[in-house]
């Protein structure tokens, strides 16, 4: 999705990140490589980003340019493999960014 966003608008101010839960470090290598550039941030017991944000597994949290939360989409309910869901999330991000 990030590549598509930047291909359509190289000046886009939309950025995507993944936050991998602590204890799942072994899943990183199979999920990277092959030209994949999505930043995966590895959580740890010391930082506890999941707990700080009080998220659930597969939450996609959308944040505006000032750090204010715009909403949460759980991708278990909204599978991005479904083109309609994908398009809707993309539209959501573009709406939020005014792009």
């Amino acid at each position, binding site marked *: 999705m990030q590549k598509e966003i930047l291909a359509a608008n190289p000046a886009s101010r939309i950025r995507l990140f993944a936050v991998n839960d602590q204890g799942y470090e072994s899943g990183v290598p199979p999920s990277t490589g092959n030209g994949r550039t999505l930043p995966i941030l*590895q959580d740890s017991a010391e930082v506890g980003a999941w707990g700080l944000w009080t998220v659930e597994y597969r939450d996609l949290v959308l944040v505006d340019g000032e750090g204010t*939360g715009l*909403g949460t989409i759980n991708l278990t309910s909204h599978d991005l493999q479904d083109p309609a869901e994908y398009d809707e999330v993309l539209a959501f991000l573009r709406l939020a960014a005014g792009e």
Partner: protein
Amino acid sequence: MRIAPCALLALVLLSPASPGAVRVSRLDAVQAAVEERLAGELPEPRRPRRDLLRAGEVLAAPRVSLLDDLTSGRTVLRLLDRSFDGEFEPDLGDALEALDADVRFERDALSGWVGHAGGAAKDARVQAGVDAADRRLDRADAAAVRCERARLLRLAGLALSRARSEAAFRAPDVDPAPYAGTAPDFALPDVTPDSATFGTDVSPSDQAGFVTAWYYTRLT
């Protein structure tokens, strides 16, 4: 419910549930209790009898949105509170609390979009709707009787619904953010070898000016 389905992104609490989605009415338990009471011996005095029958009629109508619940709930509370002192508790009280929470959920979801509604005019309309809802919610908190509280909750819901409509605002109908205010900050290492920030710590606070999406996953 963690995520509302989408219209852009489906569930609109104030609109009918999307096709295939089943919205559970907050008044279902009250409806079941009223139907059970109607199946038994009806009250002899005229007014309780009439109020029970009327409540049954109101509750028999389809309720496919929060506004439907708020509209029916207001009437049912008025009828049952004046004629059946406590007989439909805790169902009636639980329904009112759930409706209150639903309206505040909708208010929070909409307020996050002020500034992102698609222009100053739309932003202003959304903000005005949120402000109107807040005033009614404040009055609802101070309401002396439950049917008045239900009436004010309905007005708050209407204000939010109108704000969406007047702004022609197809806001993504998602859950509110999991935190209040500014995102709690952290710094975590980027472990994607081909990422531009590989090996460095990345923080939400570094992303000022960017709309960001943070996907919380468990890679396997």
